[in-house]
């Protein structure tokens, strides 16, 4: 569900540059479904030259080639996964905005969760201590730790 919301949000956000792009290169598809796949795939793939744009948004030459190849592969009946894997084989994990979970991407995937966990724990402890301090007038006594 969350994925769907973020996807539709993403396509909303990207609708404008796509409209501009549509005037530049036009790909013909057998079905609207194929065209939708083309749109989501070109937004998921990252331009290897400009590095901060998807190939849907980028004007770089290489992005144009990658769009053409994506369109071709969709027309040829390849799955989304096959298209992404095709580019990942050539340009590495870098080319996908959704890198796989691996040793070198572990920080990326697990980092936020770990920070959230520690932060939450810290806040919890601070709050408990504040509550305890409010209960007791005697501040000098160390709070009992064993429970």
């Amino acid at each position, binding site marked *: 569900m969350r994925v769907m919301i973020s996807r539709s949000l993403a396509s909303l956000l990207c609708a404008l540059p796509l409209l501009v792009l549509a005037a530049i290169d036009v790909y013909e598809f057998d079905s609207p479904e194929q065209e939708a796949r083309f749109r989501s795939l070109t937004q998921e793939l990252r331009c290897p030259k400009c590095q901060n744009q998807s190939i849907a948004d980028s004007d770089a030459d*290489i992005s144009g*080639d990658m769009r053409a190849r994506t369109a071709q592969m969709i027309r040829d009946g390849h799955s989304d996964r096959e298209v992404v894997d095709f580019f990942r084989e*050539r340009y590495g994990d870098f080319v996908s905005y959704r890198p796989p979970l691996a040793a070198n991407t572990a920080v990326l995937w697990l980092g936020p969760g770990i920070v959230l966990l520690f932060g939450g724990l810290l806040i919890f402890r601070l709050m408990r201590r504040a509550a305890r301090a409010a209960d007791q007038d005697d501040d000098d006594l160390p709070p009992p730790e064993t429970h």
Partner: protein
Amino acid sequence: MKYLWGLIPLALFAALALLLNANLGRDTESMPSALVGRSVPAFDLPALASNRDSYDQEIFKGRWSLLNIWATWCPTCYVEHPYFIELARSGVAIVGVNYKDDDDKARRYLAELGNPYTEVVVDKQGNLALDLGVYGAPETFLVSPEGKILLRHAGEVNAHVWEEKFVPLMARYEAYHGGGEDTP
């Protein structure tokens, strides 16, 4: 115990600072090629000027060679060109891939500046380049006698790069394969 908890934000900050500092100054433009260790992708492309009409991946078999992506519209290609001529004179086989270029301009370029290439294939649509994971020009690949890509170098090839990156790799490869093993 109380103080230890207070130290956690500091420790997190220090860890983050170290991590970011380690990546500072690293060249984010150069990406590892996912193709290293694989065979040169299959292709069948016209020759720029040769006694043959077209070439395929077989031209990389049987000897060490460089695959160099170049074009007349690429400024750095002019910079590295004299060094390629030097390399060619010393016996290095360099296969040129003329990338998204105009044939006449490319021929003029070689006529005026000299031709360091053993063969030049024309990749007008950029399909071979895409198969190689190329994202610009110049890019140079080191190809083993078995036709396997051992190294990808994006940007200018000069004496320094040649000595630092290409030569040791060839030496290591030969040492390893000289020991009786044939397949990489």
